[in-house]
C-alpha cells in the first residue's frame, strides 16, 4: 500500500501513536483551569492569530471613526455632568476628613484600554480581552467602564492583556444605589426569553418605590468598582417577592457591543489599618463555580 508514491514504514502504528498523542493533548486541554486556558489563548492570539486580530481592530476603527466622534462628545458631556455632580461633594468630604484628622479620600486612577469581545457559537460573547500599556499589572478584580457607564469587570491577566466579563455575564454582580441615595440593591444580568440581556435590580426594600427613569450608580462599597459610576436606568418593577423585597428591570447605560475603548480602574493603595480583614471583593461580582 502506498501513500503519495511512498510506502510508509508502518502507517497503522503511526496512526495509533498520533491518536494517543491527540488524546493526551485533549486531556491536558480539558484539565486546564480558566486562567491557564486564558494564557494559552493569549499565546495563540499573540502569534498565529495576531495578523487577524490586528486586521479586525483596524477595520473596526475604520468603520467606527465617524460614530466615534459622536460617542466621544456624548462621553465628554456625561463626564462633565458626573464631575459637576460629585465635585462639590468630594470637596466637602475632603474638608470634613481634614477637620476630623483623617487622610484625604483617594479615588484611584484609570487606564484607557481597547476591548476585544468574545464571539458567539464557539466562544462566549459575555467575555472580553483588554489590551493596553502595562494593564496586566492591575489589581484584580477591577471595574471597567466608559464615560457613559459601567461595562463589566476585569478578572485576571491574559498574556500581556487582561481578561474580563461584560455586565451581561451570569457571574456579574454590582452593588448599586439610586441617585438620591435612598434605595440600595444588587444588580445582576438576565436574558428574558433568551433575548437581549438586561439588568435586574434585586434586594430593593418592599416599601421602596423606585420610579421609572431613576438612575442607578455604583456604591463602590466592595472596592471593585469606583463609587458613582452609572450602571443603568430603572424601567419597571419586575417582581415583588414574598412581601419583603422588590426587583426592577434596569436598562443598562452601556451595551457590550458599544464598548471599544474603556477605562480600567486602579483602586488606590490603602494604608494597612484601613484595609478590612474580610475579603470584601467577594461582595461584588464574585465568580461562582460553573460546570
Amino acid at each position, binding site marked *: *500500500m*502506498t*501513500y*503519495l508514491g511512498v510506502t*510508509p514504514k508502518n*502507517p497503522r502504528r*503511526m*496512526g*495509533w501513536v*498520533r*491518536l494517543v498523542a*491527540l488524546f493526551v*493533548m*485533549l486531556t491536558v*486541554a*480539558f*484539565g*486546564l483551569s480558566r486562567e491557564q*486556558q486564558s494564557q*494559552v*489563548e493569549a499565546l*495563540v*492570539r499573540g502569534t*498565529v*492569530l495576531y495578523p*487577524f*486580530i490586528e*486586521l*479586525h481592530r483596524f*477595520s*473596526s476603527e475604520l468603520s467606527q471613526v465617524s460614530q466615534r466622534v459622536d460617542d466621544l462628545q456624548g462621553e465628554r458631556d456625561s463626564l462633565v455632568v458626573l464631575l459637576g455632580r460629585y465635585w462639590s461633594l468630594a470637596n466637602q468630604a475632603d474638608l470634613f476628613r481634614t477637620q476630623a484628622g483623617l487622610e484625604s479620600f483617594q479615588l484611584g486612577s484609570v487606564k484607557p484600554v481597547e476591548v*476585544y*469581545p*468574545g*464571539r*458567539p*457559537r*464557539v*466562544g*462566549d460573547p459575555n*467575555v*472580553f*480581552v483588554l489590551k493596553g500599556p502595562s494593564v496586566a499589572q492591575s489589581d484584580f478584580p477591577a471595574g471597567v467602564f466608559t464615560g457613559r457607564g459601567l461595562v463589566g469587570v476585569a478578572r485576571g491577566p491574559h498574556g500581556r492583556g487582561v*481578561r474580563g466579563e461584560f455586565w451581561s455575564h451570569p457571574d456579574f454582580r454590582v452593588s448599586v444605589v439610586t441617585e438620591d441615595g435612598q434605595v440600595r440593591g444588587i444588580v445582576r444580568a438576565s436574558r428574558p426569553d*433568551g433575548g437581549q440581556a438586561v439588568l435586574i435590580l434585586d434586594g430593593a426594600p418592599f416599601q421602596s418605590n423606585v420610579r421609572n427613569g431613576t438612575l442607578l450608580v455604583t456604591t463602590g462599597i466592595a472596592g471593585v468598582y469606583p463609587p458613582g459610576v452609572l450602571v443603568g436606568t430603572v424601567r419597571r418593577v419586575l417582581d415583588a417577592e414574598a412581601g419583603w423585597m422588590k426587583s426592577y428591570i434596569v436598562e443598562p447605560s452601556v451595551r457590550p457591543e458599544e464598548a471599544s475603548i474603556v477605562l480600567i480602574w486602579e483602586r488606590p493603595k490603602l494604608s494597612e489599618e484601613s484595609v478590612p480583614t474580610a475579603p470584601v471583593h467577594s461582595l461584588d461580582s464574585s465568580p461562582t463555580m460553573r460546570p
Partner: protein
Amino acid sequence: MNSRAGWLAIVFILILHFSLHPWWARWPINLDLMAGSLILGSLLLRPDRAATLGAVLGLLEASISLGDLGSSMLVFAATGFIGAWLSDLLYSDSPQFVPIFLFGGIWILQTALTLLTTGAAAVQSLLFYAPLSALLTALVFGVLARVIGIRDLTVFRGKRGLT
C-alpha cells in the same frame, strides 16, 4: 485534480474565515467556513491526521472566540476523525453525495458546539439556525468541491492509500 489544489483551497478558506470572523459571527445563519474546510480536509486525510487537524482548528477557533479550549478541540477533532473515517467506509460516485456529506458533517458539528456552549435550551439554534447554516455552507462548498475537482468520495482514496 490533485490534493495540492485542495489544500490551497482549504488554506485560502481558513484565511478568509479568520479575516472575516467578526462579520460571520454576527449573524445566526452564516457560512461556516471553518466547519466546511475541516470536513473537506477530512476527505484528504486519514482519520488520525484529520483528528489532529481538527484539534488544531479547534484551538484556533476557541482562541479567536475566547471560548473553552477543551470542548472546542474535542468537537473539532471528533468531527475530523469521523469525517475521514466515514469517507473511508462510504463508496459513492454520485455528484450529489459530497454536498450531502458536507451538510451532515456541518450540522452535526454546529449541533455539538451549540450543546456544549449554550446547552439544550437553544432549540431555535439547534433546529433552525444550525441546519440552515449547514445547508448554505454545503451548497457553497459543494460548488467549490466541483471547481477543485472533488466530484465524489472516491477521488482521494488512491492518494490516501485506500485503493
